[in-house]
């Protein structure tokens, strides 16, 4: 039991420029998602992330996490009820959508025939029944193209749980293969989206969250 899996070293190099100031990093709390896990993942990095649905707090933050787990159309409805659907696309600071958060940032999702926020110019489709749906478990990310992946090796493993995927497109900064190749991460300007769960993807996932803080 004492042999550790040797991986590349994802140890944190320095304290983040965000320091521990409350409000510098916010996680949008709109009722969808495992936000506690994300908050804990930042806590392990020494960062206090604030859960909020306050539009003022979100606008004032240095960095914004847009989480999401569950069904697309009901999550979008919750965004609309709080007015966040209008706010998120106007944010100027780095924004990271995770899982359903990323999918909602796309043009359209087949799940519940949902109109997305249109930040990423791509459609979200369902995996066919030729593979098990949801895809659940650890798969690799390839063709890494952003500072979000600084120090993360090609073919690194990430934890994914999803039935819908973003198609390959110009804004793709990582791809994954499950039945077909699809975009497992996207970037458009200050907006980033990852299909996988960095908060649940061991040390490599933690490195990605740390990179996001340093963008």
């Amino acid at each position, binding site marked *: 039991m004492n*042999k550790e899996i040797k991986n590349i070293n994802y140890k944190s190099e320095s304290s983040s420029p965000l320091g521990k100031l409350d409000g510098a990093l916010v996680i949008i709390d709109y009722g969808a998602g495992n936000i506690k896990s994300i908050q804990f993942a930042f806590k392990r990095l020494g960062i206090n992330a604030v859960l909020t649905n306050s539009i003022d707090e979100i606008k004032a933050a240095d960095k914004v996490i847009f989480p999401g787990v569950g069904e697309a159309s009901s999550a979008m409805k919750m965004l609309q009820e709080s007015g966040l659907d209008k706010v998120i696309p106007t944010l100027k600071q780095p924004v990271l959508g995770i899982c359903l958060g990323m999918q909602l940032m796309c043009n359209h999702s087949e799940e519940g025939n949902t109109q997305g926020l249109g930040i990423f110019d791509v459609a979200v489709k369902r995996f066919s029944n030729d593979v098990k749906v949801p895809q659940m478990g*650890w798969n690799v990310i390839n063709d890494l193209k952003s500072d979000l992946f600084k120090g993360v090796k090609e073919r690194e493993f990430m934890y994914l749980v999803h039935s819908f995927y973003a198609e390959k497109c110009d804004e793709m900064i990582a791809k994954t293969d499950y039945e077909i190749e699809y975009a497992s991460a996207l970037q458009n300007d200050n907006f980033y989206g990852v299909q996988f769960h960095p908060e649940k993807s061991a040390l490599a996932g933690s490195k990605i969250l740390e990179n996001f803080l340093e963008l």
Partner: protein
Amino acid sequence: MLTKRIVPCLDIKNGRTVKGVNFVNLIDAGDPVVLAKQYADLGADELVFLDIAATLENRGTTLDMVLKVAEQVNIPFTVGGGISSVEHVDALLKCGADKVSINSSAVKRPELVSELADKFGSQCVVVAIDAKQIDGEWFVHLAGGTIPTEIKLFDWAKEVEQRGAGEILFTSMNHDGTKAGFANEALAYLSELVNIPIIASGGAGTVQHFADTFIKGKSDAALAASVFHFGEIPILELKQELQKQGVPVRI
């Protein structure tokens, strides 16, 4: 390529880890939070916590444990045992559990599966099925495998899939605690029957048993307790051997 998952299971009683042999004769195997963190560092892909003595009174203790695990562990984990309501699941997910596993309560009230899937999404709903093969036919058992029912395993698996379960955790009562290998024939049939991931449980004793359940049993994940808790099978060595035999794993 999606990899096959190795899932240590931590049976919990009064906040401590235990593992029963054929569900009796409990042996203490440590502090769940310490064990969980260690497993994450050693390369486990996911963890399952089963509260085997869950009652309303100790629900708070379990929620505390879930919160502590979520704080310290950077891989996904499932919590099961004594879960029978939407409110309870809500509390567990809010404490940081990634998935919940329901068993007897789903058999007693199948609507629970649909309610949980609708409210929280299929991805966090694991239906655990304990079944025993009697005269060639697999029957679902309740309450940790102690109470037989007339429900057939494969009918029940199909129903929970239709109701929105995201995953099935199948424990063979005939194999659990024997360390003689998983129920690969039933597992392979199950894996073809439904289109959601299957976690194999019951019977892990050797590295080859894991290889067999992935290759012959077509399982998506394999769960075990004592072989991991007592260090009989180191996870890294297990994964290296699986890789040698062509099973995709995360190393």
